[in-house]
């Protein structure tokens, strides 16, 4: 009996982990755009543990970065576009110190929760693995099927901001989306992606909190 209960508990845990993992790698819109939805902790290993050739798009943001926030509508459009193209999209908060309630409120305020599952990377596992240093910053990975990846793109989402204090009415380039298109169609992606403009991700240290 005890053995049966243990077996069932293990089975239940695996199923739950599988469901969460699937949701994280292929998020679907929340039913209610204004519903407060808590973020999920990103699973860096699950993100990179996919079939060879799988493309994964990641954008790192910060709830207190005005540039990151100004780009929220563009990120919603990007998430929808990735979904339509069969590319996994992850919106990841890079702040180690911010609590789930604050992120949930931010997601509701900016309508992010309606378009995607918002994730947190408090341990900076994904930040470090991808080399991101700024929010908002976009990363495109091609998985190698063995838990590793090639980083195809690290840079800005678009040219909405030329610099701090220099903002356009609307972006005139969609650099990250163009890179995804290039990867999907086998075209080369420029080695030096345009640099992201925004707030820096402060590296973790033992005394960061």
């Amino acid at each position, binding site marked *: 009996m005890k053995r049966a209960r243990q077996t069932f508990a293990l089975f239940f845990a695996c199923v739950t982990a599988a469901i969460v993992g699937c949701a994280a790698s292929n998020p679907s819109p929340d039913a209610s755009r204004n519903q407060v939805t808590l973020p999920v902790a990103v699973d860096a290993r699950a993100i990179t543990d996919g079939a060879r050739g799988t493309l994964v798009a990641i954008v790192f943001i910060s709830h207190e970065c*005005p540039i990151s926030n100004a780009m929220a509508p563009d990120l919603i459009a990007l998430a929808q576009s990735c979904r339509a193209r069969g590319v996994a999209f992850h919106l990841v908060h890079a702040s180690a110190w911010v609590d789930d309630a604050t992120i949930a409120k931010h997601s509701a305020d900016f309508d992010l929760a309606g378009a995607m599952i918002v994730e947190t990377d408090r341990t900076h596992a994904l930040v470090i693995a991808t080399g991101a240093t700024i929010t908002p910053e976009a990363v495109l990975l091609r998985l190698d099927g063995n838990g590793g990846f090639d980083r195809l793109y690290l840079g800005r989402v678009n040219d909405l901001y030329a610099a701090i204090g220099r903002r356009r*009415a609307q972006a005139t380039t969609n650099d990250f989306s163009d890179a995804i298109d290039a990867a999907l169609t086998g075209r080369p992606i420029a080695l030096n992606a345009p640099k992201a403009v925004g707030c820096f991700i402060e*590296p973790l240290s033992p005394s960061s909190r």
Partner: protein
Amino acid sequence: MFHRTAFAIITLIAATAHAQTLDAVEAKRAWTTHCLGCHNASATAPLQLDSCERIVRHRVLARMLISDGTMPPWLPDATSAPLLHDRTLDRATRTVLLDALATRESALRAFEGLIAAAPMERELDERASFAPLHPWTVPATGGMRIRSFLAENPANAPTRVRGVRVSDPASMAQSPMRFLSLVADPARTLARLEEFDPREEHAHQHTGGFESMAGVGRTPSGALGALSRVSPTFELPRGFAFDLPRGAVAIETLSESVGRRAHIQPRLTWIAADDHDTRTISARLYFAHRLVLEPDEISTRMVGDIVTRDIDVVAIIVKGGAFLRSVAVTSTDASLCSTTLLTIRDWRMAFAEPWILTQPMRVSAGSALDVRFGFDNSAHNPQQPARPPRRVIQGLPPDDEDASVVLLVADVAALDEGNAGAMSITSPTNSLGAGALPSRVNRGTPASSE
């Protein structure tokens, strides 16, 4: 020998610790003086930097922006006349801050224990506070937008004011509002725009402003001062004041989308004048009449006029959109001696504010006041909204260009000599050298409103 070595080591350690302590004191002082005024919980900057933890969190960004001169924000360059609230950092202060922000450890050492002083609670005088009845919702996307409102002056508002301020500066930190300019509209001339804007959902109801600049006849918006996120208080120097007629005030706002729908409803408070503020301010407007910028055009427009009576220039308000890149305001007297009042070589509307001269500048009758606007409609303009560039005309941002300069001036003839003792006036100096003739185009373009 051992004792001498030990003594030397201990002395060195003590000296280093002392130096680090002094550096930390200097860093905190510099941060408090130059940064905390805007970056605290009760102020207008979007990022709070009022604790060691917050400074460390944004250390790299802060260091980058101080290093390249973006922060503290200050657009006029060194050739401008002396201006109040000049935020330019001297070299020593810049070095102190950059050293303090160099590493995480240095920032922790420098700013540990930083305490932001509790903000001074300025009591709001309800008699002097005003706001439009209805807010307007800024869309989540798009560039700078002008939205103007009418607000009724309280019945017992002061009739002479020295300035105006944002009633709650903290409300601007996350607000889309970036710049506000004011003008009296006692006859409610602009009310017809507010009531009958056909583009609004309820065209015959009050709908939260109207999409138009808010000049009233020949009186430009800015004739009662201007405010911005960088400068949420506008106060004329002692001795000067605006006449404030009863009735409505038109508030022209410039807002920028913040990534979500957000209301704007400017709430402002007058700063009353006192008996010594006897000199009345009026406004002179300069803009490039019938501006047209062809695709890829980079060009300059000069506008100006001849001053017909002695005036003192007190403040300068500049407005401009994505295509304005530089501004210069000069006065040239009858002997062709020129004085630069304001030069901005790298215009950024995000950091615009009204600039008040430290000492009002005397411009004698017969002098020319010139404004040179530098425009860039090329693909290299970092704020170019169109790809490829398209034709731009004078009009509302973000797609068109509304560049203008308003000079706030006071007549000298009306000066009561008996009350002028505390005020010193700067006379123009020759800043270009004898024989230097500034090029003039469109001289005689009427300035407005006196």
